[in-house]
């Protein structure tokens, strides 16, 4: 009996792969969005004063993941290019910061934009071979990049700069101007500030002319070309921008963890970012935060459930999450808000 149902589903408009239609279009009052934003910000500012230092560290990590996921989202969600290799750009960002601080004595704050620019360059260049590769092949090539990265970082010729297998230790900056914040709290706010700036930049990019071109390429490359959009330029640039976000995340993580080592940037990180992207919601900017939360806290939960089978529990949670919200956390929240909005009317 359920066979007939199954055969009917494909024709029902498939659940939207990417849901970036603005909430207002869908009948969620605009005031709710603003209220949610303000509330979220208030909570974000208040949290580091009420939770323990380790929690602050974890929340900072959530934001760092979110920044990298946001970058991945610009590439996958808005430009339709896969990447299972963003750990590479996170690594490049982290090592740029570490090397500049260690060998050139550059203050941390200056290394952040430097890491971003270096990664933009790498991403832009990687974008060229990516042009020739279609979906699955691109996923594989980027995955290969992720697998190769730790090996390259460990290799003898680079070891004098990267510290080889040992990695490098970095000092965390103290809060400046005598602010009454400890180092963890300070880095939390630095990350929050940079994250917000990058999120605003992402929203502006997406709603700009270039953003529309990126989406057009994602949805219909042939038509986009016919409209005179320079596909190669947009795709390589999208790769560059996406890598820039990942690089900034890497730079921040190097300082927050106070350590960089090749094995922090294995393909597991790349896959993690991808999972965070899908769980958060492909094509949703606030979704990146959900993705970050998932990456930081769900493995801990799995560990609590069963030490020996933590990986299996994690896998099962992942499957359940995909069943419950196939369009990601952002999609679920939007749906809930719609239901409430419709019910109030």
């Amino acid at each position: 009996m359920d066979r007939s149902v199954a055969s009917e589903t494909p024709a029902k408009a498939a659940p939207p792969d990417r849901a970036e239609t603005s909430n207002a279009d869908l009948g969620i009052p605009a005031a709710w969005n603003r209220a949610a934003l303000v509330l979220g910000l208030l909570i974000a500012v208040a949290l580091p004063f009420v939770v323990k230092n380790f929690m602050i560290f974890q929340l900072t990590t959530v934001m760092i993941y979110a920044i990298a996921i946001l970058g991945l989202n610009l590439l996958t969600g808005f430009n339709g290019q896969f990447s299972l290799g963003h750990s590479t750009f996170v690594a490049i960002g982290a090592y740029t910061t570490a090397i500049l601080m260690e060998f050139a004595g550059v203050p941390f704050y200056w290394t952040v934009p430097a890491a971003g620019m270096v990664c933009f360059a790498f991403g832009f260049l990687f974008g060229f071979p990516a042009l020739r590769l279609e979906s699955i092949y691109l996923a594989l090539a980027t995955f290969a990049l992720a697998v190769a990265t730790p090996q390259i970082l460990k290799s003898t010729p680079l070891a004098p700069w990267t510290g080889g297998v040992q990695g490098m230790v970095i000092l965390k900056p103290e809060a400046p101007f005598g602010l009454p914040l400890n180092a963890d709290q300070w880095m939390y706010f630095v990350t929050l500030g940079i994250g917000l700036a990058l999120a605003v930049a992402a929203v502006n990019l997406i709603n700009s002319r270039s953003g529309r071109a990126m989406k057009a390429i994602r949805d219909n490359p042939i038509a986009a070309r016919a409209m005179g959009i320079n596909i190669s330029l947009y795709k390589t640039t999208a790769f560059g921008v996406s890598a820039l976000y990942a690089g900034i995340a890497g730079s921040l993580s190097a300082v927050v963890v106070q350590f960089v080592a090749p094995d922090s940037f294995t393909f597991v990180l790349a896959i993690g970012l991808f999972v965070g992207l899908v769980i958060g919601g492909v094509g949703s900017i606030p979704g990146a935060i959900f993705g970050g939360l998932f990456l930081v806290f769900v493995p801990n939960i799995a560990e609590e459930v069963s030490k020996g089978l933590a990986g299996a529990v994690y896998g099962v949670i992942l499957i359940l999450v995909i069943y419950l919200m196939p369009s990601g956390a952002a999609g679920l929240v939007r749906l809930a808000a719609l239901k409430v909005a419709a019910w109030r009317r």
Partner: protein
Amino acid sequence: MELFLHQVLAGLATGGIYACMALAIVMIYQAIHHLNLAQGEMAMFSTFIAWQLIEWGLPYWIAFFLTIAISFVAGIVIERTVFKPLHGAPVLAHIVIFIALFAILNSAAGFIWEFTIKTFPTPFGSRSLLGDGLISAHHAGMIGVTLVVLVLLFLFFRHTRIGLAMRAAAVNPESARLVGVRVGWMIALGWGMAAAIGAVAGMLIAPVVFLEPNMMLSILLYGFAGAVVGGLTSPGGAVVGGFTVGVIENLAGTFIPYVGQELKLTIALALIVVVLMFKPTGLFGTRLVTRV
């Protein structure tokens, strides 16, 4: 020159492993048009099942075929229970499910059988056949079995109704339904076959690399490399690709000074990217001919 030949032979021997895995990968790609990231873990798990059966005292060949049968059924069950409900979900969600499966199988194998390395028997013996132990009887047997599987697959897809129906369901599910093909079951069957071939690959590979939950990580990657180099649409190409990757990996390790040995994997992976740049469908893949 002698060193060169030596390394080519050694490369062919490891290439046999990759060819085996590449074949399993292409198999499932033909059936479901996805690259299954969990395929290596499925093969690993199957191999543990075989190991357990042999531990319990079953003769090798009975354990071998029983494992294939169990894996076939398990593949179908995984498709029916995990993937069927996600029928209309986006591709990205499917990839996440592969990742979840990967985590589950890896962790469960470690939990049941522990992470210590185990030896796995070979039915072919390990005496040396060629080149001072470079190609052992086991290597030769492994290559032989891979080729047999390849031929069987070819015959199945070219000359049986179900093989034809599976191909149709994979390339054009809607049209396949319109000629009465039960597409859902064809996909499940594809999973079953891929799991079974993966089990064969795992059981052949395990005597060489030893059995442990992480045994398949790098092999899967080389398998992907082989499959992609050969062309994902061509089982024969995948086998050739697997051998090619093995040989090039070995030659690079020996002849590229300084970094060759350390960056063997990197070089092999760079090779994939280069091949794809010039031949986006792999060396033996076919580009679909379409009229607009």
